């Protein structure tokens, strides 16, 4: 499976609900199947991204954390 990231989004430092809102805005420019990478520092964004993907039909392909920075890889549904 190709894992080319179509768009990267840096929402580090931003608080709820901006990580999700900014991601939703960024997704508008993507075609279904394309990937967006999001970097966030809000710990609440971990459950929020999972819930958001469940409710929107997007897929959380990958989730990792390094030094307090969360990286989410989302495929547009």
């Amino acid at each position, binding site marked *: 499976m190709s894992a080319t990231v179509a768009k990267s989004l840096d929402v580090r430092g931003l608080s709820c*609900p901006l990580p999700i809102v900014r991601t939703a*805005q960024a997704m508008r420019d993507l075609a279904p199947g394309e990937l967006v990478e999001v970097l966030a520092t809000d710990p609440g964004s971990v459950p929020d991204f999972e819930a958001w993907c469940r409710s929107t039909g997007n897929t959380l392909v990958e989730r990792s954390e390094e030094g307090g920075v969360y990286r989410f890889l989302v495929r547009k549904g």
Partner: protein
Amino acid sequence: MTEPRTTEGGAPVPAGHDRLVIFAWSGDLDRVWPTLILATTAAAMGMRATVFFTFWGLFPLVRNDVRITGENWMQKMLSLMNRGGTEHLKLSKMNLAGAGPAMMRKLARDHKVASPTELLRLARDLGVRLVPCQMTMDLLGLRREDLVEGLDEPAGATTALLEAKDAITLLI
């Protein structure tokens, strides 16, 4: 027979819990904030989100550069003591003559929490329907040109209740 209801884009209105309707009755900072956070988040989740602004809830929609609203002295006095606009909201408790909101805004900036002004802009960008209550506008002397741009047409309780039917509804 009624036509199936559709959104502006022609798509069917999502049923039941895919819709959020908030009745925004308060002009307090600590109520306007969660109202706008929930509305923008719902829109980001693909829900159809509507906020119906009534009574004190209308004042946050007043343009920040408009000082006095109203046609007669009572309405003008009201706006003098209750300045509208997202930049001039008060806290429902610990307002401390304006020191409370100032501290709250400083904390929000430090924690990069979006301000009500930014959230209102985001709400419009995400297609949240922002509906001012026509009756309260008349009662309080708020004209369409006193309010920010990008709002839906002012409407009444019937419109609000129809939209709220089977939706998640909140009174904030």
